[in-house]
């Protein structure tokens, strides 16, 4: 089975995000970069399929030189090879341009199933997996929390508001992974050693023959609106007194209950 896992490098969830003074982006200094948590579920599922059916896992990543670390993390977890698409033309690419580059890289070799995270936790755009499926002309299932493969048949569970859908489709397809799909493994020490020798193919947008044309852009980044300082309720010192004061304030001041 030829399995592809698309990964993105993002700031760690505990990172404070500071907007540049001119609003052109975020300050990258001091940020700890990690594999997008939702992509970890995709890599893990890819490895489990390989363990079950045999085959090869290729990780593909769009981003600058620092993203090699994320590719090596996936290789250390057990992926076999990597493709790094590093091109300044793609550094601020939107979902469409990113998916176009990924599609071109994926198409260069046979594939049966492609994993993406359901969204990256930096731009929160949640589009790349679905666009990739459309560009490749194959079905896509998003937000998978469970996956079963039997021959060419694919069965996935995805939650919607108030229900779980059991969806059937067929290979080849794109699956976007979310929390619940599996528990991603940590890279082992031998895995980390082996990863250093695994092949990573370097590509540019031009080499892939893609235009890297974004269809949207963030014209300006702004900090979140400041919240006015709150009050600590201490009507009297009993929990009951505080609860009564809170109810009164929510009713009369905030008017939300």
């Amino acid at each position: 089975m030829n399995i592809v896992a698309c990964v993105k490098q993002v700031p760690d969830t505990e990172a404070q995000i500071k907007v540049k003074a001119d609003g052109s982006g975020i300050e990258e200094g001091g940020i700890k970069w990690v594999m997008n948590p939702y992509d970890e579920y995709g890599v893990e599922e890819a490895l489990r399929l390989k363990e079950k059916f045999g085959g090869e896992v290729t990780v593909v990543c769009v981003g600058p030189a620092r993203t090699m670390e994320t590719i090596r993390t996936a290789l250390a977890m057990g992926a076999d090879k990597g493709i790094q698409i590093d091109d300044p033309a793609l550094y601020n690419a939107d979902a469409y341009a990113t998916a176009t580059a990924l599609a071109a890289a994926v198409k260069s070799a046979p594939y049966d199933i492609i994993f993406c995270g359901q969204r990256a936790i930096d731009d929160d755009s949640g589009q790349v997996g679905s666009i990739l499926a459309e560009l490749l002309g194959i079905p896509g299932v998003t937000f998978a929390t469970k996956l079963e493969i039997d021959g060419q048949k694919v069965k996935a569970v995805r939650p919607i508001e108030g229900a779980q859908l059991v969806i059937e489709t067929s290979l080849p397809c794109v699956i976007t992974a979310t929390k619940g799909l599996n528990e991603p493994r940590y890279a082992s020490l031998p895995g980390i050693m082996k990863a250093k020798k695994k092949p990573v193919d370097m590509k540019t947008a031009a080499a892939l023959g893609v235009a890297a044309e974004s269809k949207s852009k963030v014209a300006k980044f702004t900090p979140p609106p400041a919240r006015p300082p709150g009050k600590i309720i201490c009507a009297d010192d009993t929990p009951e007194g505080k609860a009564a004061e809170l109810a009164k304030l929510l009713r009369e001041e905030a008017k939300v209950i």
Partner: protein
Amino acid sequence: MAKGVWIVAEQRDGALRKVSFELASTARKLADQLGEEVGAVLCGSGIEALAAALGKYGVDKVFVADSPALEPYTTDAHATAVAKVVKENDPSILLVGASAQGKDLSAALVGKLATGMATDCTDVKIADGKLLAIRPMYAGKCFGEVVVTGTPQMASLRPNVFTIVENAKAAAIVKFDAGLGEPKTKVLEVQKEAAGKIDVAEANVIVSGGRGVKGPEGFGILEELAAVLGAAVGASRAAVDAGWRAQIDQVGQTGKVVSPNLYIACGISGAIQHLAGMSSSKYIVAVNKDAEAPIFARADYGVVDDLFKVVPAFTGEVKKLLA
């Protein structure tokens, strides 16, 4: 030239979902500024009667694809149908709800229409005749002002944030053929959760619990409060990772990013990734024993005390007020 502000109306089990009215009201506002019409696409089976209800919120024309193949929703069938009618009519703006279904549909549409989209927006306006979409990024740690250079200019709108405004129009109905081929995906089963459960992404009020709730049984008093308030019960990553609550209830950067009117955080200390996911709530209440907990810096009302005493007492007070 592309013209018209369009929405994709969302229906489930033959009823329009609330986000459809939020989309219609918002589209009306944008269309009035541009001097254009509001169009809505409605797909499903036996749903033509729903079209009139969209007129109430300012839709001029409803494009209806009515076919058994469009029920229940699949990405494949709905994206094919919507992309077809959009290509035929060339609207300038296309708004979709950032619900579970809308997120799935809209991303596939971006691929089919080869355009761009601002996801999960909390505000949209017209600037220089173009759409300007405001959206939280990094789960709300910063915001982006997005312009879409592709056509149509797409944006998905966060449910429960945009105001519903009545503005009755006649809503002409235009039927179209969805142009579906052999289905690529099908829904084998819909496993419904207990009736009456409100999803955190759509709730007006959320009562959320973290590590301080101490275990799954501790959520009982939060459930009781939520029942009185008509609220959804959310959870922090700590509570979900401990196995106390389901993943779909997780609020934060690796869960759902929410903007309810009222967010009541119980026993949640306020890790950065959690704060990011709920800071755009209108009012935040924090109940925590630790006066130094970071959650208090974001809370409009803070109660420093034992949640196991405060929450039941608060539930009693709310019952009295609502009686």
